[in-house]
């Protein structure tokens, strides 16, 4: 199987994640779309690892997964704190720093 097709799929999935972050207004859904993008990156890493035949890029994927777990934990905690303050997770209503 040509690795370019896998990379193409990874590019498409990454773009879908970008659309989600730009379109959605719920904070949790935006976090989910960030996970989509991270996974698309992981897919590209695994493809490169397969072509190189080494474990190096697989270790990078391992690191990205750990970072994603940390990001999800902190992001969801911020969402909960935000919900307590505003009774909503709609990011359009959080505009104190926006001019």
């Amino acid at each position, binding site marked *: *199987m*040509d*690795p*370019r097709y*896998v*990379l*193409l*799929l990874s*590019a*498409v*999935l*990454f*773009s*879908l*994640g*970008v*659309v*989600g972050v*730009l*379109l*959605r207004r*719920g904070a*949790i*859904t935006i976090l*989910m779309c960030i*996970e*989509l993008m991270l*996974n698309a990156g*992981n*897919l590209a890493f*695994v*493809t490169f*690892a*397969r*072509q190189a*035949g080494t*474990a*190096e890029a*697989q*270790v990078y*994927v*391992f*690191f990205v*997964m*750990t970072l*994603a*777990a*940390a990001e999800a*934990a*902190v992001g*969801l*905690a*911020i*969402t*909960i*704190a935000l*919900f307590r303050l505003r009774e909503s*997770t*709609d990011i*359009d209503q959080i505009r104190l720093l926006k001019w």
Partner: protein
Amino acid sequence: MSGGALEAAAFFVLAVLTVASALVVITHRNPVVCALALAFHLVGIAGLFLLLGSQFLALLQVIVYAGAIMVLILFVVMLLNLGEETRAGSHGRIQAWLAPVLALALAAVLGKAVLSGPAQAAVTPGSGYGTAGTVGQELFARFFYPFEVLSLLLVAAMIGAVLLAKKRV
């Protein structure tokens, strides 16, 4: 059916599954449905990892992503009892129109960059490729210090999450 054709068919099925579930994640208004579609997506990615010979990472993907992170997200969605997302205001409509166009442009640029390279034959990996043994050896030999920094980061994230989410006393 030959091995190559079988592999291509599996790749096609998994590609359709991942793209379709990603579309549901970015379009459905109910966050619970989005989370379940994301779980499907993550399992599909794990299948792709398996197809590419990274069996250890496929297992990690299911345990860490589809297990731990999805439970966390679903737990918060249900804890906050979120309803359907509100419709966009007037300024949101321009964004809703512009975002898919720009993302399509991004996909076109990325796709062109990928496809402009020469066609490559798939490499058949050596024995032991993608097992926990080889990945772990690389992790603890060459990436030992980054690994330790990462464990510090996880501790910091854990304490930060507890501090951020707890009620003021």
